[in-house]
């Protein structure tokens, strides 16, 4: 059974312990979570959790059923048709070529967001694979620190 990348959305009641219930389902079975994002859904008591993981159809089917069984979980669905975005923040020494970096960022829906005496910080927001590409491309500018947000997704 081929292991494929999966994006799962889980709508949960926004309460303490719900995240550990969900993470526990994965860790207890020895499955890794590639990325996980959580944020409240506006004007509701719910939060949306977006999980990116790897697994075969059977494994994911079982995980989705088990997620459904958790009491504070309202809805679970695996995305088939979706828009995905991920953000990354990157810190460069201010001595690197500002204009080159700014141009690269722009190509990936980003820009320089902060400059201090020693460092500048830029952000990009794109589909995860393009964020990967961006991070490869900026290696030669000696990034000091990289922070990725994890994926958010929406069904088309």
């Amino acid at each position, binding site marked *: 059974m081929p292991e494929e990348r999966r994006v799962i959305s889980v709508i*949960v*009641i926004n309460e*303490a*312990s719900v995240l*550990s*219930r969900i993470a*526990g389902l994965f860790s*207890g079975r020895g499955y890794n979570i590639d990325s996980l994002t959580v944020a409240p859904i506006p004007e509701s008591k719910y939060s949306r959790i977006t999980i990116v993981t790897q697994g075969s159809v059977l494994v994911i*089917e*079982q995980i989705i*059923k*088990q997620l*459904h*069984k958790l*009491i*504070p*979980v*309202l809805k679970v669905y695996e995305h088939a048709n979706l828009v995905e975005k991920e953000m990354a923040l990157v810190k460069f020494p201010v001595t690197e070529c500002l204009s080159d970096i700014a141009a690269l960022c722009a190509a990936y829906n980003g820009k320089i967001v902060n400059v201090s005496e020693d460092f500048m910080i830029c952000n990009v927001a794109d589909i995860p694979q393009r964020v990967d590409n961006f991070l490869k491309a900026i290696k030669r500018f000696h990034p000091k620190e990289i922070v990725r947000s994890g994926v958010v997704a929406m069904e088309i």
Partner: protein
Amino acid sequence: MQISGAQMVIESLIAENVEVVFGYPGGAIMNVYDEIYKQNGFQHVLARHEQAAIHAAEGYSKATGRVGVAMITSGPGFTNAVTGLADAYMDSIPMVVISGQVPMSLIGTDAFQEIDAVGISRPCTKHNYLVTDAKDLPRILKEAFYIASTGRPGPVHVDIPKDVTAQIEEFVYPESIELETYKPTVKGNARQIKKAIDAIGEASRPIFYLGGGIINSNAADEVRELVNMTNIPSVETLMARGTLGADNENLISMLGMHGSYAANMSMSEADLMIAIGARFDDRVTGKLSEFAKHARIIHIDIDPASISKLVNADFPIVGDVKNVVKEMIPLAKERIDGQKYAQWRETVANFDKLHPLSYQDSDEVLKPQWVVERIGQLLGDDANITTDVGQHQMWAAQFYPFSRPRQWITSGGLGTMGFGFPAAIGVKRGCPDKVSINVTGDGSILMNIQELMTAVEYKLPVINVILNNNYLGMVRQWQTMFYDKRHSQTDLSMQPDFVMLAQSFGGLGYRVKTKEEFDAALKDAVEKNVVALIDVTVNRLENVLPMVPSGGSLFNMMLEYKDK
């Protein structure tokens, strides 16, 4: 009404019609125990170990169908209870377990007797709560009982810090509960049910695979009606023993690792399987790819996660077994000819004639199977049977003539040694009119032997029948068969004097080596109605047979074992 969190616990339990709580006090739960002292709405049974308190509540719940309630303190009190929680979770037993916790201000400081209880109980409960405000307590307890007893039942753990039990708030117990995110499907899909009935009608070799969900759903009457009407051969899992009754002519026997040859062969030959409240446990299926591989599968279960988890179901029906089977009955009456499967029934009967479930009795030494059969002959329907885990458990499941649901209480999923005696105490508390027999082994009984004190104190006369072979028998059997007889750490020749042991707690002990002695001991213990240990010396190297070696196929059974 302005009352403390501790009082709220009492009032809530009374509102839920709880008649007995099994527990053990300690520092963090003292506020609640103080209120227990002052009330007379329910009885508190003081176990002598927290694990036993949970098992007793499990036994009570399994025997009565009610929610079992247990109470323990923080830290070690809670960690001792974890085995019980896991056991109840694996066997889907409705339970509410309340534990004390250190005060909110001390949580996370490595306080005395502090442990992250909800962190530990999360994977072994259906749901759990850490109560951070007494205002939430009535709602949480209402939810706990509701969640424990609906859908696929299971244990719910409520952890209450000591300052929350001291906090004074307005108390109103909610009358009903609605959880937006928890709505078990109880009614089966009508179209799926029709399709399933048609599939049964088309089949020529159908088989019912009956599981413990039938007992949980109180659906044995309905299932029996369906089975009798259709005349379809049926097998029971370990957890379903007692569903059809031993004298039902459609019942083949138990299936699985130590199931009968006929049950396992019929399953292997069937062209349609109707799984009801069963979950395809590995001890049932053996090698999955070979399990009932000629059969299309109808699977009825309240838990969607159980369906197509291990074996793909051709006709999945999510719903409460009782509801679904009730809807199947009139359709089956219309569309299924009960005479149709005569030839298949004959095949099944021939399997049974070829290798019936049996054992070689002896005049020289007591056979454990004889002891189980004899209890059945002497007490039959009058006894409830609990067991521990191991060879004795399998012999009890194979040879006791079960006649009704909830007569048989055993630790199936988790396989917890030490379960039987405390569970039998809970069973006796729930069903005082039946004789409570715990069939146990010389290994298992020592794992909760301190409960002799509980049984004696509360006059809950459990009769423990120890099938004593001076071995950790089931492990010894595997070592004999699969590890070249290297009996590593399974020789239990060092033993206490069980007669004196029972006496020292105020119970009665019997030493039994012959059939006559066994009859006399059992009759005496039943008559005197006391807590008893009957130490029965049985054949030391008896094996549980037949057997499907772990990972083997059901149709490839070891029918006898010849010592090399």
